[in-house]
């Protein structure tokens, strides 16, 4: 996808604008502003940013236990002996950060990398669901908290996981709704999220 910038834009700048505009949440206008900002910064700053981007691609991978993004495998949370035997299932790595901020959860996580969304063609096979079931089979937790988003794909994923986990005879719960329906978990404030976690309901 290329956007025409007219003869007034130098080709390398146009290329940078096009690259930036591909990022989520960035339109052409913001991309142009960022590109011209980078043009004005020092060479050191530009190199540092470029290196940080490459670093993230080269050094960050998925934890083989919880599938959160990590540098070391297993990740810091999975290898922390102070964590209890509960698993909190979330859609995205950003949700782990949001839940860790609450300080209310002392167990470990499992990142699905999405939610079941038939309209978008995303079925259970595209998510880390089989991996979750295998993890539960191998090392049964005392509780699984399903903290997927409170929108329809998140709710349907919770229903589906509950059905798969039922035969294991462990407690399966869902954060209580202090959280309004329809929203993404990562945007919830810590108080609401913390309260929702402590008051979770058993499925």
């Amino acid at each position: 996808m290329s956007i025409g910038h007219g003869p007034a834009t130098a080709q390398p700048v146009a290329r940078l604008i096009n690259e930036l505009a591909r990022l989520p949440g960035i339109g052409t206008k913001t991309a142009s502003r960022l590109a011209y900002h980078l043009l004005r910064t020092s060479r050191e700053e530009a190199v540092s940013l470029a290196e940080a981007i490459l670093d993230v691609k080269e050094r960050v991978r998925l934890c083989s236990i919880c599938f959160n993004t990590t540098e070391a495998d297993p990740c810091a949370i999975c290898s922390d002996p102070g964590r209890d035997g509960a698993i909190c299932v979330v859609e995205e790595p950003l949700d782990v950060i949001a839940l860790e901020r609450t300080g209310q959860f002392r167990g470990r996580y499992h990142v699905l990398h999405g939610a079941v969304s038939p309209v978008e063609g995303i079925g259970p096979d595209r998510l880390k669901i089989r991996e979750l079931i295998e993890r539960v089979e191998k090392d049964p937790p005392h509780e699984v908290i399903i903290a997927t988003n409170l929108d329809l794909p998140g709710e349907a994923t919770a229903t589906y996981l509950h059905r798969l986990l039922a035969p294991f005879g462990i407690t399966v719960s869902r954060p209580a709704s202090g959280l309004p329906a329809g929203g993404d978990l990562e945007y919830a404030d810590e108080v609401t999220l913390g309260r929702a976690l402590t008051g979770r309901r058993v499925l």
Partner: protein
Amino acid sequence: MSSSPPYAETESAVSRSSDRLYRCDAIVLARMDFGEADRILTLYSRQHGKLRVIAKGARRPLSRLGPHLEYFSHSRLMLARGRDLDVVTGAETVEAHLAIRDDLDAFGNASHMVEILARLTEDRQENAAVFDLLASSLHLLADGVDAFHVTRHYELALLTLLGYRPQLLHCIECRVALSQAPHPFSPAQGGFLCESCHGRAPATRLVGVDAQKYLRALDRGGLSATVRISIDSPLRDELEGIFGAYLRHIAERDLGSLRVLRELHDASSYNVR
């Protein structure tokens, strides 16, 4: 019905001039995250057909728009004409169809319904009957009516409303009345072929007599003619297959919901190990 005030307004300052604002009844067919917390939605509206609109801040938990713009929920919207996309400025839920989210079969079938509607229609081609069909079918799913029958009825009725009604009684090629025997269904032509025409066509699967009977009953008597028919799983697969092939042919692409629905049905295979 939601308890929030009607037409919860967004923070964005929208000019009040009446030519920029309009109301419609709509159901969300598809959605895409956009920007920090916005959503681009594909709607099917009763007044203007299929629309693509933007809902600003809809992904934030405290968004007053978000809960009214969920998949499958029938909402009354206030829209403002925008440069690229019209902007949702107010939303009120008419029917949330909450029961669909607790039933995976209903959820998968409702997804299939909205997906094929999105694929088979063009933007801003008004068709109130299509909206009413979708709204009533979602209502039936939420009420717990057998999702298989509701969905097959929706498919046939939608195809008919959009001008793709399949030919079920006569050979699509030579118009001769079909005999009581298995016949192939041609997705490309949109109908069954008789024995003599079949010989000249490329090899297609034969559709059994029971499946043909079901389709004719559905065509003649609608859902009330089929909802009490109990059908075994091979017949289910056969009927799903005919509609799936025909819809794929018209949409000219694969249909994601049908594939995911199958994966959801296979859920039990995870446990029996």
